[in-house]
């Protein structure tokens, strides 16, 4: 009985040690590939960044208005973005090769799934980028309109507009990459519906002055008659 146990144990140990002996070189290879990949990516990033600065890519994009768009979206310069994208693309490629070198079938399947998701991921990033641009543009428009209309809380109003557009963009992006599709859409619908209902109630109960201003803007003649009482200067 004891001999049988010992025999099985030694066989198991032998199998594990064989597995470890087989796996260790792959792990080392993966680590080496990761490190080499990082170094290659970093070198490429630095070289490319300097090259693009020498070639004045930022200025070229500035004349086309793209640099301004990126600044508005609180994103770095075009040269910085391109070099960072190259860094991550190269390093992720090396990482995928490294993980593949492990020879684990399940991981290889996941990698294959990840690669097939990449186009959707890029589209989602684009949605986020344009969402960010739209959020910045419309929140500033709301802020200026509120300030010039002498509204009570311009920044709050502007932040709300920004939040709403970003929420919409994030929901669309997540939906695009299929992440918790049902949950995201339901959560968004509930949040959006709740916000709108809350606004409707708040507007009806507490926003009589705001409603009056909106109606005055809609019917300027009536407003003008009122305003003439205290301000009748023509600026032109």
């Amino acid at each position, binding site marked *: 009985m004891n001999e049988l146990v010992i025999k099985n144990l030694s066989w198991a140990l032998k199998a594990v040690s064989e597995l470890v002996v087989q796996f260790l070189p792959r792990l080392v290879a993966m680590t080496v590939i990761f490190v080499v990949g990082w170094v290659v990516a970093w070198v490429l990033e630095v070289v490319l960044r300097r090259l693009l600065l020498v070639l004045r890519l930022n200025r070229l994009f500035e004349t086309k208005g793209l640099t301004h768009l990126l600044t508005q979206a609180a994103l770095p310069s075009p040269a910085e973005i391109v070099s960072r994208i190259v860094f991550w693309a190269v390093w992720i490629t090396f990482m995928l090769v490294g993980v593949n070198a492990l020879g684990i079938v399940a991981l290889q399947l996941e990698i294959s799934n990840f690669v097939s998701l990449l186009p959707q991921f890029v589209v989602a990033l684009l949605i986020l980028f344009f969402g960010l641009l739209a959020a910045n543009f419309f929140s*500033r428009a709301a*802020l*200026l309109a509120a*300030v*010039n209309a*002498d509204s009570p809380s311009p920044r709050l109003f502007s932040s709300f507009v920004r939040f709403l557009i970003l929420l919409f963009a994030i929901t669309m992006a997540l939906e695009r990459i299929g992440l918790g599709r049902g949950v995201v859409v339901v959560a968004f619908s509930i949040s959006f519906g709740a916000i709108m209902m809350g606004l409707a109630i708040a507007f009806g109960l507490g926003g009589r002055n705001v409603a009056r201003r909106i109606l005055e803007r809609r019917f300027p003649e009536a407003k003008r008659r009122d305003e003439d009482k205290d301000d*009748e200067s*023509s*600026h032109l």
Partner: protein
Amino acid sequence: MTEESLLSDEFVRQLTAVGGVDILVGVPTLNNRTTVERVIDAILIGLVKYYPRERSVLINPDGGSNDGTTEAVQAASIPDFRTALASNPLRTMHVVSGHYPGVQGQVGALRMILAAADLLGAQACALVSADLLSITPEWMEALIRPVLKEKFDFVAPIYERHRFDGLLVKNMLHPLIRATFGYRIEEPVGRELAFSGRLASHFLEHDSGWQDFLRFGAYAWMTTTTMAGKYQVCQSFLGPRVEASKRSGLDLTTAIREIAGAAFHCMDIHESYWVSQQGSQDVPTFGFQPVLDLDPVRVNRKRMFEMFKSGVDQLGAVLEEILSPSTLQGIRGISKLDEKLFHFPDELWAKTVYEFASSHHRSVINRDHLLQALTPLYRGRVSSFILENLRADGQEVESKLESLRLEYERLKPYLIESWKQANVR
């Protein structure tokens, strides 16, 4: 653009029936039934009284009025000259109406008038607003005579104004145009003006950028294009300007977007001209300026000051993108002053306007947003101007305004530096 593409077949047919003319007066309309009849009567009586021997035509482009304006124009076309002048005209007075697409706004109407002037070979053209209450037949003489008899190419109006009326023109447009283009024109966006036939052709040849101008911006374009083209410019006293739709139907933000936006845009278009201009020159002035006791205007200065303070506070991030740190610091500093001690210095105001113009030139942010951000600062300037001139008479106010204009001129190198930085970036 050729005039044929601007005019409908029916309109060209009517113009052809008129033949050649010496004088053309354009009156664009859009729902002006209550005032247009009187305006046209005044114009026709003025033409008969002062130019009985000249061939004249009144052109009325209508933007699609639905209140009976067109019918009112036709009804006003045959005034009883005997009661007004004790004589009849020596020539037939023509009134030609046509439609322009309302979406083109004032620009569409002006292009139609220019094309008609070109087609009819008019020697002198005048533009008159349809919603005027204060027009008299003498306006025709004041506007047209310098072109027809004195051979000037462009006649800008001078209106009699209350000292607190037209503050955007007085504090910004007049000094800005004077400092940049070098002509001392009182009303750079006056809506009653006259020009020669050859200048009308010049406008038509250079009108490719007109679609960028909103309603009243086109008048700024005409004035600056005349100066940049080095045409003969003069101005003429017209008297008080009272219109039916008070404040031109514009709220302050829209007025700044249209007028300041147009002025900045004109600086873009004529950059090569104004950058090399130094100092400013007087322009010949016709007519007699009466000293009238105009009705006082009420301005809510306190509210303007509060809106300035709140604007500076709320729009900090936006203003940081437009203004230099030192100018913004100055504005933040004065926004903390007590209302009764508030003072917006001339130098700071001129620098603010110049930096807005430069930022507009390089589109640091959306141009419409940029112009909206100017509104609270303008309110501050107006509030300060009124506080300083509460008890001042007309002469004192004029003297202070002249100091402001000189400050704009003194700081022109600052504008050019800021503008050129914009080009280098």
